[in-house]
C-alpha cells in the first residue's frame, strides 16, 4: 500500500471524476483538478467565494462549485478552461445545487425550498419546479439518468412527481400515504421507488415507475421508525435500518421482510469472526518510563501500533447510553451500505458507534464484526470487489475483506485524521480526507495485499 503526498483541502471537498481520470479538490475559493495517475495539476479555477459544494457532471466535462452563502453557482469546463458560467440565484438564496444526469442542466434549490430552478447550459431556458419538499433526500435520479423523482409538499400532503430528465416533462404525479415524507430512493434498475416516512412512524412505501403503489411495509408502531435505507445493487433487496437497532431486508418479489438483522451488544455466535482493534504502544526502554507519564502535548509521542485481533466470542461491544430526550438520539442503524456485488451489507448501529457489522446476504446472517477503538466516521465499499474501507477520524484507515482485516497508518508528519474517504472507480486507490488535507492511498492488487499487510504488521 502506497500513499501520495499530502495536499491541502478545505471543506472535505474532494471528488474523483466519474470517468476516473481526474480528481477535483477545493482549497478555500480555488478549485484544483489533478490527474489521478500523476497527481499533476491539470486545471486551477478560482471562484468568487469559498466553495461549499462541488460536483462533477456525469460526463466528467464540467464541475459545478456552489457557494451557498452567496447564492452562487459557478461551472467550469475541463476542456475549455476559458469557458465559464455563473448562476446567481439572487435574493431567493441557495441551499442545494446538483447536476442533472445529462450534465447539461443544473438544479438549484432556493432557500426555504421555495422552488427548484433548472438551469440549462444548452439553451437559455429556465424551468421552475414548485413545492419541493424540504427533507433529507427529496430528489433522486434513476441510474440511467432518464427520470427524476421529486418529493413535494402541497397543502400539508406529500406528493411525488416523476420527471423525464430529457425535457423536464412531468410524467407522473401522485400523493403518497405518508405523514411526513423523509426520503425517496430509486431502485438501481429504475423501476421501483422507495418512499419512507418520518422517523416518528415506521413506514416504507414502494411505488412503481408509473405511480402504482406496489407495497407498503411497517414493522411496528408507536416508536421511532426508519433511520436509513439502502437498495442492493441488484435491486433484489431493500435494507431498512431503524431506530430499534435492526435492519430489515425486504425482497423484490413480494416486498415482504425476508429477515431481520439485530445489532446486539453481546455477540455469542462462535461462527462470527470478531475483529477487535487493539492498540499497542511501541516498546519503550525501561529508562524512558517516567511517572507521572508525560502529557500528550509535551512532545511528539510515537504513534502506537494498531492491529486487529480476533476476539473469541462471546464478546460484548462498547455501547453508548443514548440521550433519549433530545432530538436525533444516537440509537438505531444509521449507516447502511451494500457491497457492489450485493453479497455483503455493512451497517453501523449508532449506539454502538465503534463497531461495523458485516452481514452475509447470501446466507442472511452476520458474517463479521469489527470493533474499532474510536467511533466509525465513515465506511465505503470498493466499487470493484467486496472490500470495505473504514475511517474513524484517527490517523488510520481500515480495510475489511472476506479474507481478513487490515489497519494501515497514514504516513506523514503530524496527525492525519481521516474524516472521510472515497474510492476511485477502479478500486485501485482511494482518497483520504482530513480537515485540511487529503492524500491518495494506492492499493496493490489482491495478491499483493497479503504481503503488504505482513509488511505493515512488521513496521507500523
Amino acid at each position, binding site marked *: 500500500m502506497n500513499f501520495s503526498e499530502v495536499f491541502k483541502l478545505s471543506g472535505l471537498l474532494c471528488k474523483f471524476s466519474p470517468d476516473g481520470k481526474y480528481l477535483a479538490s477545493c482549497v478555500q475559493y480555488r478549485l484544483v483538478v489533478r490527474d489521478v495517475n500523476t497527481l499533476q495539476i491539470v486545471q486551477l479555477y478560482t471562484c468568487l467565494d469559498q466553495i461549499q459544494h462541488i460536483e462533477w457532471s*456525469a*460526463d466528467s466535462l464540467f464541475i459545478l462549485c456552489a457557494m451557498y452563502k452567496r447564492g452562487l453557482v459557478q461551472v467550469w*469546463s475541463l476542456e475549455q478552461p*476559458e*469557458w*465559464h*458560467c*455563473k*448562476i*446567481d*440565484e*439572487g*435574493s*431567493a438564496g441557495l441551499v442545494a445545487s446538483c447536476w442533472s444526469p*445529462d*450534465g*447539461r442542466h443544473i438544479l438549484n434549490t*432556493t432557500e*426555504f425550498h*421555495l*422552488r427548484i430552478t433548472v*438551469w*440549462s*447550459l*444548452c*439553451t*437559455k*431556458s*429556465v424551468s421552475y419546479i414548485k413545492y419541493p419538499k424540504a427533507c433529507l433526500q427529496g430528489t433522486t435520479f434513476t441510474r440511467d439518468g*432518464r*427520470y427524476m423523482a421529486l418529493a413535494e*409538499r402541497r*397543502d*400539508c400532503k406529500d406528493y411525488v412527481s416523476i420527471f*423525464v430528465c430529457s*425535457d423536464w*416533462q412531468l*410524467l407522473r404525479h401522485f400523493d403518497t400515504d405518508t*405523514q*411526513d415524507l423523509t426520503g425517496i430512493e430509486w431502485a438501481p*434498475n*429504475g*423501476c421501483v421507488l422507495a418512499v419512507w416516512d418520518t422517523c*416518528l412512524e415506521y413506514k416504507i412505501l414502494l411505488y*412503481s*415507475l*408509473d405511480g402504482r403503489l406496489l407495497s407498503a411495509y411497517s414493522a411496528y408502531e*408507536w416508536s421511532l421508525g426508519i433511520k436509513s435505507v439502502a437498495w442492493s445493487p441488484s435491486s433484489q433487496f431493500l435494507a431498512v435500518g431503524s431506530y430499534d437497532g435492526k435492519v430489515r431486508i425486504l425482497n423484490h418479489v413480494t416486498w415482504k421482510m425476508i429477515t431481520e438483522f439485530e445489532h446486539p451488544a453481546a455477540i455469542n455466535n462462535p461462527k462470527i469472526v470478531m475483529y477487535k482493534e487493539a492498540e499497542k504502544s511501541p516498546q519503550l526502554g525501561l529508562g524512558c518510563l517516567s511517572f507521572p507519564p508525560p502529557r500528550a502535548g509535551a512532545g511528539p509521542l510515537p504513534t502506537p501500533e494498531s492491529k486487529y485481533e480476533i476476539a473469541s466470542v462471546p464478546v460484548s461491544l462498547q455501547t453508548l447510553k443514548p440521550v433519549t430526550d433530545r432530538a436525533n438520539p444516537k440509537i438505531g442503524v444509521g449507516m447502511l451500505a451494500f457491497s457492489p456485488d450485493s453479497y455483503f451489507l455493512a451497517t453501523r448501529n449508532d449506539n454502538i458507534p465503534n463497531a461495523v457489522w458485516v452481514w452475509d446476504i447470501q446466507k442472511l446472517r452476520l458474517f463479521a464484526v469489527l470493533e474499532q477503538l474510536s467511533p466509525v466516521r465513515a465506511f465505503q465499499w470498493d466499487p470493484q470487489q467486496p472490500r470495505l474501507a473504514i475511517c474513524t477520524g484517527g490517523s488510520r484507515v481500515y480495510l475489511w475483506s472476506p479474507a481478513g482485516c487490515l489497519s494501515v497508518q497514514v504516513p506523514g508528519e503530524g496527525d492525519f485524521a481521516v474524516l472521510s474517504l472515497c474510492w476511485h472507480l477502479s478500486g485501485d486507490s482511494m482518497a483520504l480526507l482530513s480537515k485540511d488535507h487529503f492524500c491518495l492511498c494506492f492499493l496493490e492488487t489482491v495478491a499483493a495485499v497479503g504481503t503488504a499487510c505482513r509488511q505493515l504488521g512488521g513496521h507500523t
Partner: protein
Amino acid sequence: MGDWMTVTDPGLSSENKTISQHTSETKMSPSSLYSQQVLCSSIPLSKNVHSFFSAFCTEDNIEQSISYLDQELTTFGFPSLYEESKGKETKRELNIIAVLNCMNELLVLQRKNLLAQENVETQNLKLGSDMDHLQSCYSKLKEQLETSRREMIGLQERDRQLQCKNRNLHQLLKNEKDEVQKLQNIIASRATQYNHDMKRKEREYNKLKERLHQLVMNKKDKKIAMDILNYVGRADGKRGSWRTGKTEARNEDEMYKILLNDYEYRQKQILMENAELKKVLQQMKKEMISLLSPQKKKPRERVDDSTGTVISDVEEDAGELSRESIWDLSCETVREQLTNSIRKQWRILKSHVEKLDNQVSKVHLEGFNDEDVISRQDHEQETEKLELEIQQCKEMIKTQQQLLQQQLATACDDDTTSLLRDCYLLEEKERLKEEWSLFKEQKKNFERERRSFTEAAIRLGLERKAFEEERASWLKQQFLNMTTFDHQNSENVKLFSAFSGSSDQDNLTVHSRQPQKKPHSMSNGSPVCMSKLTKSLPASPSTSDFCQTRSCISEHSSVNVLNITPEDIKPNQVGGECTNQKWSVASRPGSQEGCYSGCSLTYTNSHVEKDDLP
C-alpha cells in the same frame, strides 16, 4: 380375706377369662389396673394361710371348725366332709377321704390360681409396657399434630399474604395497564395534536412561503441570472425538442417500455429459477424412486399390503416420469403432478426412515434388555457360520489345487492350458473344474458306450456268424432238398423269418438296456441329467453342443443334488448364498455376463457335491 379367696375360688377359671377379656378390651382403663393390683396383693396373703389356719382351729373347737368348714365347703359345692348319716340323731362321722379329696382339690385349685395369677401378672406387665408405648406414641402424635397444626396455620398465613401480594400485584398490573392505556391515549392525542399543530404551522409556513415567493420571484430580481460564455451542446448531440403532446406520449411509451422490460427480465429470471427448481425436483424424484424401489421390492413378499400398494405407486410414477418430460414446458399441468408425486414419495421415504428408526430403537432396546442371551446366540451362530465358511473355503482351495494339479498333469489341449494359465479368477477355475468333471463323466460315458457298442458288435458278429452258418446249412439243406421235398421249402422260409425277427428283438433289447444301465453305473447319481446327457451325447457328441447344454445340466444337477440331500445342504446353503453374492460382485467387473448365473450355480453345485463327499 379368706372369705374373698373362698368366694372366688370355684369360678376362678371362668372369671380369669372374663378378666383377661376385660383387660384386653379396655387395656387403658384405670379400673382394670386397679383390679390387677388387687389380684397382685393376694399373693402374700396366700403365704400366710397356714398360720391363719392354725389359729383358726384349736383342740377345743375341732368340731365347730369342722362343721364350719363343712358348711363352707358345701356352700361352694364340695361334697360334705361328713359321712352320709343313716339316722337323724346319729352323730355324723368325719369322712377322712372326703376331707383329703377336698384338700387335694383345694390345693389343685390353689395351684391353678397361682398360675393364673402369674399369667395375669405377666400380662399386666406386658400391657403396662404396651400402655407406656402407646402413651408415648400418643404424646408424640399429639406433638406432631400440634406442630403440623402450627405449620398449617403458618402456611395459611403465608398463603394469605401471598394472595394479598398477588392481589396487590394484580392491582398494580391493572394500574400499569391503565397507565399504558392512558399513555398510549396521551401519545395518540399528542400525535393528533402535534399533527394538527404541524398542519397549522405548515399552513402558516406555506402562506409565508407563498408570500415570500411572490415577493422574491415577482420582483423581477435582476440578480437572478445565468452568466454564461456560450451555450454548450447537448450531451447526446441532439437539439432540445419542443414540448408537445407527442413527446408526452413518447415519454409514456418509453416509461412503459422500461417497465415492461423490467417485468420481462424478472419473468425470465423467475422462469429460469422455476426450470432449475423443476429440474432439481425431477432429479430428486428420480433418485427417490431409484432409492425406494429396490429397497421395497426385496421385502415385498413379507411386508404387508400397504407397502405393496406403495410400490405400485412408485412404479406408476416411474412410468409417468417419461411422460412428464414431454410436458416440461407447461408448468401448470406438471406442477401438480410433480408436487404430488414428490410429496407421496417423500411420505414413503419418511415412513421408511421412521420405520428404520423404530427398528434401530427396538434393536437398541432389545440389546439393552437381554444383552447376554442374544449376544451369545449371535456369537455362536456367527462362529458356526464363519467356521462353515472357512471349511468351505478350505475345501474349495483344496479342490482347486487338485484340479490344477490334475490339469497340469494330464495333457490337456492348448485351449484349456492357456485358459488355465490366464485365469486367476475363481470363477474361471470353478468353471474349468465343472467342465473338467463333466468332461470326465462324458469320457466315462463314451467309454461305456463304446464298450457296449463293441459288445453289441461282437454279439452281432457272433450272430452273423451263426446266421451265416445257419444260412450255409440252410442253403446246404435247400440244395439237398431241392431235389427231395417241395413242402419242406416253405417251412424253412417261415423258420427263417421267425429267426430274423427274434434277432431284431435282441438288438432292440440291447439298445434299450443301454440307457437303463448307465445311470446305475453313475457314482454321483443324477438320473435325470445323465439320461439327458446320454440322450444328447450320442446324437451330437461335439463340444459346442456340450457347452450349450452345460448350464442347463448344472442347473439340473444342482437341483437334483439339493433334492437328494436337503438336510445336509441347509447349513451349506447359507454359506453358498453368501459366497454366491460375493461371487457375483467379483464377477461383474469381469467379462461374461451371460455366464454369470450359470457360473454361480455351478459354484454352489460344486460346493454341495464336495460337501456330500467324505
